[in-house]
């Protein structure tokens, strides 16, 4: 994911200097902030587009769900996931539908309304 973000940031910068970036980290992808920060800095350097590590701000986005059948809304705290399930969801967040169903009605037909994955929230270039 860091590779995609690095490429994207460089394309936005378009040769100008990156000043700061804000990146949303969705709870479902269970990204380690410091590992991501380090990887991003390295990848940006490889792409020829530097940005100091302290200019990256992460915003944690909690996972949130809403049932399409009964309308109930819930968070990950309300359901139990073991480590293997969390790891599977880390790779492909949509597989959450295999492990989670609506606590109110049991339906797997729900929307992930927040906290899916990594997103670039803001880029500031000089």
């Amino acid at each position, binding site marked *: 994911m860091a*590779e995609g973000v690095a490429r994207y940031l460089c394309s936005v910068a378009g040769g100008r200097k990156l000043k700061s970036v804000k990146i949303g980290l969705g709870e479902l992808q269970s990204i380690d902030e410091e590992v991501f920060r380090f990887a991003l800095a390295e990848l940006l350097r490889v792409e020829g587009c530097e940005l100091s590590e302290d200019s990256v701000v992460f915003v944690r986005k909690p996972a949130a769900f809403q049932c399409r059948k009964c309308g109930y809304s819930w968070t990950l705290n309300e359901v139990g996931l073991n480590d293997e399930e969390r790891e599977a969801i880390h*790779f492909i967040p*949509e*597989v959450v539908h295999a492990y989670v169903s609506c606590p109110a009605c049991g339906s797997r*037909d729900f929307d992930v309304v927040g906290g899916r994955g990594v997103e670039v929230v*803001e880029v500031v270039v000089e």
Partner: protein
Amino acid sequence: MSGLRRHDEDPRKLLIERRLANVNNVIPVMSPKGGVGKTLISTLMALAIAENNSSVGILDLDVTNPSIHVILNLDPGVKPSEDKGVIPPKVHGIKAMSIAYYTEGKPLPLRGSEITKVVREILAITIWGSLDYLIIDTPPGMSDVHLEILSNVGKARPLVVTTPHILSVYSVRSLLTILKEVGTPIVGLVENMSENPTDVVIDLCREFKIRYLGNVPLESLLALSVGNMTLMKKTRAYSRVAEIIKRLSS
């Protein structure tokens, strides 16, 4: 100084072409009609390519109903390894990638937008390395998976499968029309479940100016060979698909 807010951009899209940069041929196997044998043809193709000492991967993008892992009889304990992405395990000489590695056989109902995200995620995270061929099994229809491939995999050259049945031919006509409209080069058409080439399918190929790659017979042994690659390679279907592969490579 300028601040740019870009909620609509998806960084994963920038990775897809890079992940496929060293794959010479990307062949999505498509047919709008279900039950025409796309998955078995995909698997037979991959087996025949591997047997031919070419490097091959197979990607199951029938994400809500994956079955390549069942045909290949993948050991449930085998998972892709991780190193700056996901590296698919090699089975029967084929690098095999499927969402089934991550669902433990549980049902996975998904809405269209979620299917798009899954396809994008898998294409962005899977590290294929160098391959002569990547065969992509697709679900029936002409919707999210197919459109995502056509939009984001520039080197995709679909192979179309039909049976001689009039309903299948009717559906395939729509698919060919769409592919032609967007200028996607088509590898050719395979007539499956057919003892001999039929006029209706050959005429369709002529009409759309695409290659008729050959017919593949329907046989009970093929169904029995699911999960047993040794047996599968003894089927007439495998022999016919192997001939098609030789024709494609020549």
